[in-house]
């Protein structure tokens, strides 16, 4: 059993009366001939790494190798714990965690590229926050990760998740679409609502450029992961209310790809445009904005 676009995926879900997660699991075990127990174990391991990364960010003193980020998730967590957060419990937690994973990534810690290292905070941010806020079992989150993987697979197969090819919309945008679908399934959405949520998420940040300061995965990547996490929750909420996307996921992916390829090369991971060329950003990069504690 295989599918290569969202339309086929929805047909399979509807014929077999299964959620997207199960269709993706079947593709892995049936079409790709992977052992079901091994697949489950591997995804559990990936989720453990995600949780560990968040824990590290909130408990350790991290400074990135480029010296521009470190400690932000602790600051945001302090604000949240003091009851001064303005985004509400779920969103505040999700963005704090997303930012934290990027600190671990930038300080050479262990993360899961999902779909890329630069966008590795979005999915753990959304799913770990949801798990805590709604008291969900790990097994339920693992299912949501299969759904996220299904959307990521559709984007990788039919477009790209590389910033150098499609800008940040292809990295954080894809992660956000994946998380939106996963979150929609977690909250009881139908397969078609999941893919609509993914479509909303992609289109909401269409055109986002990739402009890393100093060529490093630090600024503005860290905050963009927070935006990706919040956008996923916003998109899931829109879809869960029953609002349907006029543009189906397959078209949204195609649109994202076309926009990505029409971005000037200076705005595709080359650090020759956008934020990377802001004078203060160049200065921060050259002077190590954050000094390690001695």
């Amino acid at each position: 059993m295989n599918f290569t676009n969202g339309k086929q995926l929805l047909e399979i879900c509807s014929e077999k009366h299964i959620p997207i997660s199960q269709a993706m699991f079947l593709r892995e075990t049936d079409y790709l001939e992977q052992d079901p127990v091994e697949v489950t174990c591997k995804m559990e391991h990936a989720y453990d790494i995600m949780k560990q990364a968040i824990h590290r960010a909130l408990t350790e003193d991290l400074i990135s190798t480029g010296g521009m980020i470190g400690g932000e998730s602790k600051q945001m967590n302090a604000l949240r714990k003091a009851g001064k957060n303005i985004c509400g419990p779920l969103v505040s937690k999700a963005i704090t965690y997303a930012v934290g994973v990027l600190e671990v990534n930038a300080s050479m810690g262990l993360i899961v590229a999902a779909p890329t290292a630069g966008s590795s905070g979005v999915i753990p941010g959304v799913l770990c926050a949801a798990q805590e806020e709604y008291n969900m079992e790990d097994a339920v989150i693992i299912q949501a990760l299969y759904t996220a993987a299904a959307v990521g697979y559709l984007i990788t197969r039919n477009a790209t998740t590389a910033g150098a090819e499609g800008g940040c919309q292809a990295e954080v945008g894809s992660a956000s679409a994946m998380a939106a679908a996963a979150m929609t399934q977690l909250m009881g959405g139908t397969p078609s609502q999941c893919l609509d949520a993914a479509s909303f998420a992609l289109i909401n940040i269409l055109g986002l450029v990739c402009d890393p300061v100093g060529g490093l995965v630090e600024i503005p990547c860290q905050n963009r992961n927070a935006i990706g996490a919040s956008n996923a929750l916003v998109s899931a909420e829109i879809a869960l209310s029953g609002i349907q996307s006029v543009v189906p996921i397959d078209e949204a992916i195609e649109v994202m790809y076309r926009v990505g390829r029409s971005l000037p090369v200076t705005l595709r991971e080359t650090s020759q445009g956008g934020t990377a060329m802001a004078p203060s950003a160049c200065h921060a990069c050259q002077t190590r904005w954050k000094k390690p504690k001695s």
Partner: protein
Amino acid sequence: MNDISMFDIIGPNMIGPSSSHTAGALRIAHLAGKLAPAKILSVTFTLYGSFAWTYRGHGTDRALVGGILGFLPDDERIRDSFQYADAAGLKYEFIENTTEKDIHPNTVDILLHCENNRTIELRGESIGGGNAVIRRLNGIDIALSGAYSTLIVHHKDKKGVLAYITTVCSGIDLNIAFMKVYRKAKGDSAYAIIEVDSDINPSIISVLECHDAIINATIVPAI
């Protein structure tokens, strides 16, 4: 190429910050380490393009040294790989080449000095998502990804050698997934690169090396 697995999407599990600059770089060096003909004493890395400009901030240097030491992309020791190299007596140096433009942006040349005055040089490209390809080995253009268990046979370009290699493979029930031969020039030095689906029994090496035209054979496990 393999069809996309869900663990290509939720994965790889890796030490950050960049799949191409950290995990991909490590992969090139890991393959280099496996190709070394004897214990490695020192290594010189020449970095090109984006590697040359951003290698410190991306930890590319530590990933490369970690790869030579045999670390995998998710090994927490990568961050401290310089200390592990010092403890293992491995010397390393980095050369930045920012003048060569006509080259893949994430390219590294690796020169290994091994025991008994043996050396090996190769060029690797980090092609995205933590994947990498060895493009050149001792002056011969090749393509080696490390995605499969691989048998690399260094031989003289001579009639009958390939027939011998495939016969030996079938003799130990080894199913060949992909096989390609690369040579410097007609009758000169050549590499047969054979990718298989299963692990390769090391006993194949001595049998292959019996042949007059085969210089040596190396097994590189899939990573």
